[in-house]
């Protein structure tokens, strides 16, 4: 470390008290002496990830967009899987959609996470937010939240590849297949909602509000934060009980 001439980042910690500053100094000493960082201190055993605004993928979006960067979500999911202190994951969604591949990547990781996961759709879980919200073990939607299901090609945006019908159709099939495999909605019903005419003013598709999403089998239950955390805790306890039972 002493030969390092490059600037070293020191995160600003506004408003922290002296005790925490000492703790941070201790952490810095730890890095300098042992060359390692200590595992982050977690008071609770549940971890939460917000997916808000646009899901940003292969292109950095201009600053007026509020984005969730997938390259930051993915390692967090890896850490959740690997960190023994984390027992369950709560995913809170309020997204307008975003990059298809980034969204599907996040959805696949949430799906294959071995720890219990619960998702909660607040406000909106539109477009690519739909597969992300159904990827968890159990899903909630708040009463007033909406989910828009629409075809990719109409409001989608394409860069770098020829915008052939087949290409976009394939992309759309990936989304549909994921949603159908991870919820109780049938493919026919999902396609019907996707190509519905008359629900959106100038577009094709369907807006589902709160319990509509539950009734058609996309989301498991209408609920809020309390229910979501209680359900996650129950799933964690259930998993612990199963582990005790088998050992």
């Amino acid at each position, binding site marked *: 470390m002493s030969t*390092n001439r490059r600037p070293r*980042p020191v995160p600003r910690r506004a408003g922290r008290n002296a005790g925490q500053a000492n703790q941070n100094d201790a952490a810095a000493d730890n890095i300098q002496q042992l060359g390692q960082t200590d595992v982050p201190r977690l008071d609770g055993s549940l971890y939460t990830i917000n997916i808000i605004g646009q899901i940003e*993928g292969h292109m950095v979006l201009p600053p007026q967009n509020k984005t969730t960067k997938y390259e*930051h979500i993915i*390692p967090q999911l890896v*850490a*959740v899987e690997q960190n023994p202190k984390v027992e369950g994951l709560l995913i809170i969604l309020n997204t307008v959609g975003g990059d298809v591949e980034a969204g599907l990547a996040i959805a696949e990781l949430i799906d294959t996470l071995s720890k219990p996961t619960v998702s909660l759709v607040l406000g909106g879980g539109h477009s690519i937010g739909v597969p992300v919200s159904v990827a968890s073990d159990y899903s909630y939607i708040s009463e007033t939240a909406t989910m*828009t299901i629409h075809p990719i090609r109409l409001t989608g945006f394409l*860069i770098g590849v020829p915008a052939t019908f087949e290409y976009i159709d394939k992309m759309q099939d990936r989304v549909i297949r994921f949603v159908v495999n991870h919820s109780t909605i049938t493919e026919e019903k999902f396609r019907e909602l996707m190509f519905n005419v008359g629900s959106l003013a100038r577009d094709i598709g369907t807006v589902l509000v709160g319990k509509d999403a539950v009734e058609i089998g996309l989301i498991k239950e209408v609920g809020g934060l309390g229910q979501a955390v209680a359900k996650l805790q129950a799933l964690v306890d259930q998993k612990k009980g199963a582990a005790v039972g088998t050992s």
Partner: protein
Amino acid sequence: MILYTIMPPESILEGYDTFKPEYIELDYPGGGKMVIEPLSQSEGRLVRLISPCPDDYLRPENQPGTIISFKPVHP
């Protein structure tokens, strides 16, 4: 790349042709990099963390958007 979103593309991409952010890379303690958008000589906004250690991503001070102050380290 395909954007699948309810937002109209023109509002998402507004200013895309003039949007040219400059990023610098700083060493992250423990063997990684921080991609930072400089705001002044000694401060910048964290854009992205590149670290092989997944636990680094769980630290609240490493979330994108955090203001990072940095200073040269003398031998």
